[in-house]
């Protein structure tokens, strides 16, 4: 606590103020899957490195976000 009465008043004002309407952006708390790491994993796959070797898989589905 400040010894200056004016500062005390200001501290009380700050404590009572509403939060700013433009809160600072913050970094997402949890790291989402990293695309570069996935690509690095795929780069170890010879089927991906050499497209001529690739055979279609039957597992999984592509995303269909749009109708």
């Amino acid at each position: 606590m400040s010894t200056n009465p004016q500062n005390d008043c200001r501290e009380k004002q700050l404590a009572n103020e509403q939060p700013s309407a433009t809160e600072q952006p913050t970094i997402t708390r949890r790291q989402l899957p990293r695309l570069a790491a996935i690509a690095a994993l795929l780069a170890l796959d010879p089927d991906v490195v050499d497209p001529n070797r690739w055979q279609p898989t039957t597992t999984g589905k592509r995303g269909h976000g749009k109708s």
Partner: protein
Amino acid sequence: VRAAAVVAHLDALDVLPALRAALRAMTAHDESALECREHWTGIIPGLERTLGLDPVAVAPFTLAWSLMYSAITHLDHLQDGDLDDDPVFRTLPHPGIGYNLVFAYYVLASSLLHTLSDQAFSSHRTTRLHRLWNKHMLRMASGQQLDLTTAKADQSALDSYQLIAQYKTGATFALVFGGLAALASDDPDFVDLFADVGELYGLLLQCSDDLRDAEDQPNLTLTLPHALQARFGHTTSAISERFWNQLYQESSHHLDELVTFLPPAMQAELRQLFVTAFGEAATQE
């Protein structure tokens, strides 16, 4: 119904006739356009069910979000010079008018938030919602800024793409997930958790759209196929398919970790939103 509510709100505002007419036209156009963008707005009813929210009570927010999403789509078209597919802006004498309309449209969208009922929601919740709105809109704009200033293909293209996708589309969906959670709960951790789930949803949506629409992507934007091309030196359907399968699999695990402490029924409903949008995750090969 959506357009009628926006027009009723607009008619109560003090704007000159020319702008009012233009905003009415945009609203009418976008209501029909939104029906073709089910992958955007289709998430809202599912979230309302998951959170036990009354759709009528939260309509000012869901309308605001939908209108905002339309506004940034128009902005994309203006910035890319891609007006052929935008009937609202195609006939404008010059793009400057379009920028003013987008600005006004965005303000109109955000002003809908003020029509949330005081009886239905405490000022604490609506204040948090406003803060969340500004936070994620600034994040979205920073993603757009990076998108507009990033070289299309270099060795760090995947990292750049991730930032762009997370800050553009991710933040937009973080807002709708987190915003609805903010109207349903006073718990900031609960709100943050939903925002994180929304960001993951948005990232996946952007990646899946990019991979599926590889042939139609504008050259001005860094897309996932461009970034994969930069990384591997070539793009094939093999790379796209395996990349997506791996990404979705890891994202499904990430979602499981995020929702661990939620009630089981809520966990199941959130997982179902992802399955509805993206299908079942591939099994480990």
